């Protein structure tokens, strides 16, 4: 299995542990479209990591099924299955005794790729994660920073060009600045390679930033809501989701849209503070509050004014 | 054959007891002296975090010393007798005790010592109330190694007139195969008991909270990596 992204489908997937009354994951049913990032979010104990690990069978499913590209994961040889899925974990788990290049080359080597092709692929991937190959190829994990290690982890997971990736809180152990940088990196890489990704996180903001779809799980592995970020924020399914999204749900929603997506009002010689067209609505709101103005003049790339946005149009945009 | 050996032990129990006593006295004296020398020195150096090169390499050197050679030299310089053998045994027993004491005290986590200092403890108080209790398991591991080593080497001491159960073991002509095997069994039991004895003492003296972390054999100081 390699190459083009594939759809992942959970069909009433359930995990029960012996001796426990409640299942860890209860009849999870959702479909992740090919090439999309699906974030599994929820409090601890919500079974999000368990659900993810059922995909590559690190945890055995009790009832129900999971399929990749239409093929049930249970029907495949487990080793072949795992070699066809990119797996990234929080502590990375780079092999300390192997160089960066050897780490990245792990799965291709297992698959028996010819040496030349492996070397090329390693360089290509190091390039993709923005670690200059000549510099980093022969380094050992002990010589890397946390952010660099996770980049190598990412490269390693992508090495055999799997159609599907599983990521378990991959940026959780990093400091906020590095985390933010790597989140952007992931979006950029995804833009280039377009894999189907199941991404586990407990951070709703991270999920909103990265996810094309978000699945909110509650305790006992029950799916509370599965939607795009916009629909989730605009129409939460129940109280639990409302609470989970946070009291600043409205602001989160504003952060998803940008000024250049709105219909702007006429300038009419208005004198007001300016805001770039790429500014999010949330930042625009923040600017209005700070400057005391009720309107902003929206300007384009070269500073040319395009129109006016008011507090009312902002509010109307998301309701 | 082992039955005959045990028969010998039973028949000659006075002899066996006498030799066992000699063996114990020799081992005990050597061990006591070695502890008296090496333990304070190691603890003190570890407390000051000085002399790590010395402490670590003494262990290496000590392990490299062939016991037969040391005993032979003791005999050569000090003649036959109890004290020459005892001295040789002391030389062999000092390294594991010294090194383990050093590593144990030196290795108490810096944060803990700093917290103690911050609370206003004097150097001596830190040593006695914080470092020593935490270092106890490893210190005892060293004493335990030295004990087994001394009891074992005291057996060889017989070739230099040291007495003890070794006397029987090296003298097959005099005591016959049964005697030799019997004495061998006795000295093995003696060593195992000594080891268990020190282990028990170690467990008794270790603060309850730390039990379960004690190593049961000499840790190689080079084992710590990274």
């Amino acid at each position, binding site marked *: 299995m390699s190459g083009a992204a594939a759809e992942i489908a959970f069909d009433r997937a359930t995990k029960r542990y012996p001796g426990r009354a409640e299942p860890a994951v209860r009849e999870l049913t959702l479909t992740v479209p090919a090439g999309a990032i699906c974030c599994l979010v929820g409090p601890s104990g919500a079974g999000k990591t368990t659900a993810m690990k059922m995909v590559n069978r690190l945890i055995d499913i009790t009832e129900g099924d999971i399929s990749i590209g239409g093929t049930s994961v249970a029907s495949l040889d487990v080793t072949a299955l795992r*070699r066809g899925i990119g797996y990234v974990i929080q502590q990375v788990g780079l092999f300390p*005794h192997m160089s960066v290049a050897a780490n990245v080359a792990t799965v291709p080597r297992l698959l028996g790729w010819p040496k030349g092709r492996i070397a090329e692929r390693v360089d290509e991937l190091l390039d993709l994660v923005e670690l200059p190959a000549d510099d980093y190829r022969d380094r050992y994990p002990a010589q890397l920073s946390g952010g660099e290690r996770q980049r190598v982890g990412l490269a390693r997971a992508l090495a055999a060009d799997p159609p599907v990736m599983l990521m378990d809180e991959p940026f959780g152990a990093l400091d906020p600045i590095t985390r933010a940088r790597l989140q952007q990196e992931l979006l950029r890489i995804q833009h280039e390679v377009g894999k189907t990704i199941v991404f586990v996180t407990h951070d709703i903001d991270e999920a909103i930033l990265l996810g094309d779809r978000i699945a909110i799980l509650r305790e006992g592995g029950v799916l509370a809501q599965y939607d795009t970020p916009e629909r989730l924020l605009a129409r939460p399914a129940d109280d639990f989701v409302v609470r989970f999204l946070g009291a600043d749900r409205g602001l989160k929603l504003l952060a998803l849209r940008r000024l250049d997506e709105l219909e702007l009002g006429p300038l009419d010689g208005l004198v007001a503070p300016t805001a770039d067209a790429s500014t999010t609505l949330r930042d625009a709101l923040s600017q209005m509050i700070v400057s005391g103005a009720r309107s902003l003049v929206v300007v384009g790339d070269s500073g040319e004014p395009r129109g006016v946005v008011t507090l009312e149009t902002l509010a109307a945009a998301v309701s | 054959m082992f039955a005959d050996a045990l028969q010998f032990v039973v028949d000659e129990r006075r002899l066996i007891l006498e030799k066992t006593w000699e063996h114990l006295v020799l081992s005990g004296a050597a061990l006591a002296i070695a502890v008296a020398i090496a333990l304070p020195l190691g603890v003190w150096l570890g407390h000051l975090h000085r002399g790590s090169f010395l402490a670590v390499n003494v262990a*290496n050197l000590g392990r*490299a010393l062939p016991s037969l050679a040391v005993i032979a030299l003791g005999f*050569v310089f000090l003649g036959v007798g109890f004290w020459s053998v005892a001295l040789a045994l002391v030389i062999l027993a000092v390294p594991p005790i010294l090194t383990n004491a050093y590593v144990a005290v030196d290795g108490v986590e810096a944060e803990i010592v700093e917290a103690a200092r911050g609370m206003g403890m004097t150097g001596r108080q830190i040593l006695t109330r914080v470092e020593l209790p935490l270092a106890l398991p490893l210190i005892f591991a060293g004493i335990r190694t030295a004990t087994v080593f001394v009891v074992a080497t005291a057996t060889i001491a017989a070739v230099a007139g040291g007495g003890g159960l070794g006397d029987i*073991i090296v003298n097959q002509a005099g005591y016959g195969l049964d005697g030799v095997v019997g004495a061998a069994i006795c000295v093995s039991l003696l060593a195992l008991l000594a080891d268990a004895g020190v282990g028990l003492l170690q467990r008794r003296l270790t603060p309850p909270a730390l039990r379960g972390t004690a190593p049961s054999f000499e840790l190689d100081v080079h*084992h710590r990596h990274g």
Partner: protein
Amino acid sequence: MTDGLVEPLVAQSGPVIPDFGEGSDCVVDNRLFCPDWVRDNWSDVLQPALVEHVQLTIIAVAIGLVLSLAAALLTHRFRLLERPFGTFSAVVYTIPSLALFQLLVPVTGLTVTTVEVALVGYTLLILYRNIVEGLRSVPPEVLEAARGMGLTRRQTLWRIELPLAVPATMAGLRVAVVSTIALATVAALVVPKGLGYPIFLALREAFNTEIIAAGALAVALALVADALLVLAERALTPWSSARRTT
């Protein structure tokens, strides 16, 4: 040495002048150390003993390593074996060498085999414990990543766990080699081989130089072996000396 081990030297009452015929003054007076004796007797006394000593050591450590490795791998797979293996090697380690020789002699005779069995036995404890520790020290996230990536159990063992156990194994090997070299001197009480033999002969005549020469050789051998093993470890584990420079 005929039907038993050694005869004690307690019968010696005072210093005995070694009868070496053309011995130099130094030797005749039995001064502390006579370099000329060493030179004269190197090739027929000391060198052969040294070579035999090296052989004894290498055989013992090699066999000990293989046995300990096998035991450690079995323990790694079947945890329950740890107690029995550990206790067995600890008991063997505790038995005084002379006693162990004597317990073996009725079975294997006054041969090199007896000596090797005992020496192998003494290496087991440290090697077994260290290899087991080494295998255990592999970080759990490394194992999880390996499993998730699709390495089979065997591949994980050979490509990940064993290489990462090398440092601990080498540490144990160093201790085992050095201890075996020291212990092998006692072998002379069973068979006339190794550096213990000249020491032993010299003991009968209280001949200082020979004792010191053979003893010093044993110590030197141990230190050289230790240094070689340190170099070997560095060569085998290029990753352990790598450190962040940024």
